[in-house]
């Protein structure tokens, strides 16, 4: 690895009970990157993210955070460095936006160190950064999917971590809200210099927003690097089994994956665009 990395895994074997999802997997998240992990369903991308976030203990291998085994660190210490937006979170019934965001301050508080003006400032700032400030007193149950996702991101921001991991933050959102959430992520990455790692389903979004792409299949990393170099028709065919052409996104110049029409499938070898 030529790039500096604060978070990565070496020789990871990841498993739920006895079902092994990935074997001997090594990845490194470049510092200050917006890294996106893609791959077909059940390729192990969310599992990898959970391992990196310390919510899943690898069966073998080590996850390194700032050069140290993440499981040798104290929970609270990790929680001040690395935040996670899990795929499934539960908002307690009746909780308000401000109260939910405030729970992100958990690792900064203790029995003796209760709510402070600093906490207040960070919570207000996090809500402003995600555009949910005017929703502060509304119950979370009443919000739309996109608003709710922004509230959860605000909670993760309130944790004030330099690394933020997001597990499929756009799933279940309509397309406008997907872009809204990804634009927010890009802004957090660019303006606040955070390192972001997101698992995404949509290849087009991944290519458009990522500064570093990790493509996985069957628990292996098939390719990684700058999406402009990584996203080729051959790679998409290999990872997703989808014949396609790659054109330039007219808005951003990033690779845009255009699946082949059924007729095209029969017409011979696939060419990269």
């Amino acid at each position: 690895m030529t790039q500096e990395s604060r978070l990565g895994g070496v020789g990871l074997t990841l498993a739920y009970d006895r079902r092994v999802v990935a074997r001997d997997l090594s990845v490194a998240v470049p510092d200050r990157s917006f890294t996106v992990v893609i791959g077909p369903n059940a390729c192990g991308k969310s599992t990898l993210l959970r391992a990196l976030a310390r919510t899943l203990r690898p069966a073998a291998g080590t996850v390194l955070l700032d050069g140290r085994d993440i499981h040798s660190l104290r929970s609270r210490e990790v929680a001040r460095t690395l935040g996670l937006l899990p795929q499934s979170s539960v908002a307690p019934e009746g909780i308000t936006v401000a109260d939910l965001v405030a729970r992100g301050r958990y690792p900064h508080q203790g029995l003796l160190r209760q709510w402070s003006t600093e906490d207040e400032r960070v919570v207000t700032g996090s809500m402003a950064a995600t555009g949910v400030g005017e929703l502060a007193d509304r119950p979370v149950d009443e919000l739309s999917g996109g608003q709710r996702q922004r509230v959860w991101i605000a909670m993760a921001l309130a944790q004030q971590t330099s690394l933020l991991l997001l597990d499929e933050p756009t799933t279940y959102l309509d397309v406008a809200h997907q872009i809204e959430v990804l634009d927010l992520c890009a802004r957090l990455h660019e303006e606040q210099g955070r390192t972001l790692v997101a698992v995404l389903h949509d290849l087009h979004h991944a290519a458009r927003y990522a500064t570093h792409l990790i493509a996985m299949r069957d628990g292996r990393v098939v390719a990684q690097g700058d999406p402009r170099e990584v996203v080729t028709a051959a790679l998409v065919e290999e990872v997703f089994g989808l014949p396609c052409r790659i054109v330039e996104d007219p808005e951003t110049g990033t690779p845009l994956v255009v699946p082949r029409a059924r007729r095209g499938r029969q017409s011979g070898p696939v060419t990269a665009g």
Partner: protein
Amino acid sequence: MAVLSIAVGAKQLTLVEVWHGLISTTSPEHAVVRQMRLPRTLLGLLAGAALGVAGALMQALTRNPLADPGLLGINAGASAAVATATALLGVATVRGWIWFALLGAVVVTVAVHAVGGGRQATPERLALAGAALNAVLYSYVSAVMLLDAASLDRLRFWTVGSLATADFTTVATVAPFILGGLLVGLAGARPLNALALGDDAARALGARPALVRAGTVTAVTLLCGAATAACGPIVFVGLLVPHLVRALTGPDLRWLLPYSAVLAPVLLLGADVLGRVLGRPGELQVGLVTAVLGGPLFLRLVARR
């Protein structure tokens, strides 16, 4: 604040009765008040706080606002153990019962955990396992009582839930367990707040779900075991009080737990006083009163959801 003032009001009411008995030492009520009503009130305060906080903890732990200390079979376990001790070993005092009640509570807690999937236990599986064990254990208690009805007369009142048998020994016996359980429970407020967001979110925030669950279950076991040993299984207090409090404070356990600890004794003592008034010249057991009042309220809660 409104809750606090209600709390003081309701306590004051019972204390006034007590006061009259206390000041006129020559009056025939003196003995009644000192030997019966005072410990009864103290026990009501303790047991009420125990049930209220245990209910709030259970609801947080299972992420189910309709959960209650009976849900995981803890009360049933304590009751079954006490019934066994009374029928087979002839134990007839609270001082003897408490150990059996705690033992029963612990055994059932472990059993529910094992049946509910051990390390992979989810709130849903725990609740199902608890409901199943509940049914089995209460049938067992009924069977024991039917077979040995005469000698279990005292136990019969006890299985309904009653403060009437309270004396200072009872209070002194259960107080350490309840106070200990309250302390452990209140210390869990912040971590449980984190756990309420889901296990992964809680871990990401730096909380340790397994540890928090273990601590909470310990607190609930202490609270329910001690309260059940002293008064029998009193229903609905643990379910309703946190629900009422939540309407005032929202779901933040740092408020919910202390408010429940204050409001639940108010409700329990209120029900007890009501039972005394309605049942004259005898009295209605407080467990019957809470059941009669709580049933319809519970149905309303379910219907509203």
